[in-house]
């Protein structure tokens, strides 16, 4: 309580420039730096390979240019299928993640043992969906439902649940508690309170997250094709395997255009919806 810093009059104790570090903290920082440097070695970082790889890259680019347009109709169909997979998967994923996120949100479930158990299970399931990579989900679904876009759609749906489930739950946890308390005080049930006070307040975040999920899904749906889960990815793999670099370049540019368009539309949609009118 007593101020002891100014013991000697006339000489004020200014704080030191750098706060004195705990020796353990210092050791931890050094160890961290060493680990980062070691990681470069572990990652096979090599300047010589980078330098010698340069000409090969130029060679690839020169052989890939100009992109060919001969298979454009078929590729367009494949690209459309890729986006359709992404869209359908995201929609299913978002719809399924809402109830799951509601169960996972702390403070939304009843404060009983059962309520806590349900919350913990929901959080574990979401974490599991999120931590297993989408490519692995695609492999699993190719085995279970066969080759084709349906497997890719399911993989995206599961990946979206992992992504949206977490962020939906976090945004519902961050909602201001006041309106919910007001409705509880007015005699509203728990479910009424969630749908009237919590979800509307979390809606901007839901929309933003869903649009990010769609962008993410569009990017991953390209890769999923590589393991036979539908879409344009398989075309890219075939073109590369046959050294048809001009075709590969066409496909890469098409993917680039698609992702760019989805991202642009996503940010426009976000802005418009968030400023939208009330209901």
């Amino acid at each position, binding site marked *: 309580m007593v101020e002891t810093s100014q013991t000697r009059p006339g000489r004020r104790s200014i704080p030191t420039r750098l706060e004195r570090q705990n020796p353990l903290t210092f050791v931890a920082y050094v160890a961290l730096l060493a680990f980062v440097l070691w990681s470069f070695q572990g990652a096979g970082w090599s300047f010589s390979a980078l330098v010698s790889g340069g000409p090969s890259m130029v060679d690839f680019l020169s052989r890939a240019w100009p992109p060919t347009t001969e298979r454009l109709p078929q590729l367009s169909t494949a690209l459309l299928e890729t986006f359709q997979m992404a869209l359908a998967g995201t929609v299913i994923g978002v719809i399924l993640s809402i109830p799951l996120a509601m169960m996972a949100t702390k403070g939304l479930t009843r404060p009983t043992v059962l309520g806590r158990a349900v919350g913990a299970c929901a959080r574990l399931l979401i974490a599991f969906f999120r931590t297993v990579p989408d490519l692995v989900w695609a492999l699993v679904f190719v085995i279970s439902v066969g080759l084709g876009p349906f497997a890719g759609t399911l993989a995206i749906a599961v990946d979206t649940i992992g992504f949206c489930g977490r962020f939906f739950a976090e945004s519902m946890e961050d909602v201001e508690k006041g309106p919910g308390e007001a409705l509880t005080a007015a*005699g509203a049930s728990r479910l009424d309170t969630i749908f009237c006070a919590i979800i*509307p307040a979390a809606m901007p975040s839901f929309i933003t997250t869903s649009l990010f999920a769609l962008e993410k899904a569009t990017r991953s749906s390209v890769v999923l094709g590589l393991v036979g889960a539908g879409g344009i990815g398989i075309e890219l793999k075939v073109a590369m395997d046959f050294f048809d670099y001009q075709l590969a370049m066409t496909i890469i540019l098409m993917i680039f255009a698609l992702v760019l368009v989805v991202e642009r539309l996503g940010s426009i949609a976000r802005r418009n919806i968030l400023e939208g009118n009330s*209901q």
Partner: protein
Amino acid sequence: MQTAALTTGVQAPVVHPPSPASPAKLDLAIRGLCKSFETNRAVLTDVSFSIANKEAVALIGSNGAGKSTALRCAMRLVEPDSGEAVLFGTELRSAKARQLRKIRSDVGFVFQKHNLVPRVSALTNVVHGNLGRASGIRGWSQAFSGRHIRERAYACLERVGLSRQAMKRADQLSGGQSQRVAIARALMQQPKMIVADEPVASLDPVAGQEVMDLFHHLAKEEGITLLFTTHNVAHALAYSDRVVALRGGKVELDQTSALLSSSDLNEFYG
């Protein structure tokens, strides 16, 4: 030990017997409420007071005196450690969930920070006032509600003078308008009693006056019992039949307003 520390230097509590209206039907009776929070700070050490039907009571006390906690315990929005709150003849701690919702729906609770749902219209916020009576999707938005409910909600907005803002988003209303929408939401409950926790503390003096006048009219014209907390001594005296003052988690004054002067009340902020 906490209790002792909080009450040192305070003379024996001057608790007057409940108001002359006490033989009448009691809407709210609080007996021996105690509540402390995790920090081990006792907020309410022993709070007892009651409110008769159609009575207007002001609850005063400095910051941290336990006013808000007392109101929340009275509605069982906060679970008291001990003591009981009897609302319209029902002891709340023993009430089942459904019964509790029914009792709560008879009390319109108005908060300092209006607590409207943002991003939805004023009308939807008023429609929400009916959720205690009719749960479910038709009460979630004015867009899903039946004609009767929409008309009644609109009438409540008219009652607070905001029918022209019915479709405006709640987060685009001014502070005074928001608080009036919150009152309309409370009116939608067709309450027997209104409980207001520092309803004008975040409003400018003019808007605050309007809101207090509105409460006064509702209490006097429609016979709604009123319990409000305030830091404004003038409001406490002008708009209540009786003043209850809390200090250190205890009731230290319970007196008819007509017998009190502002200096009597200022003492609680000293």
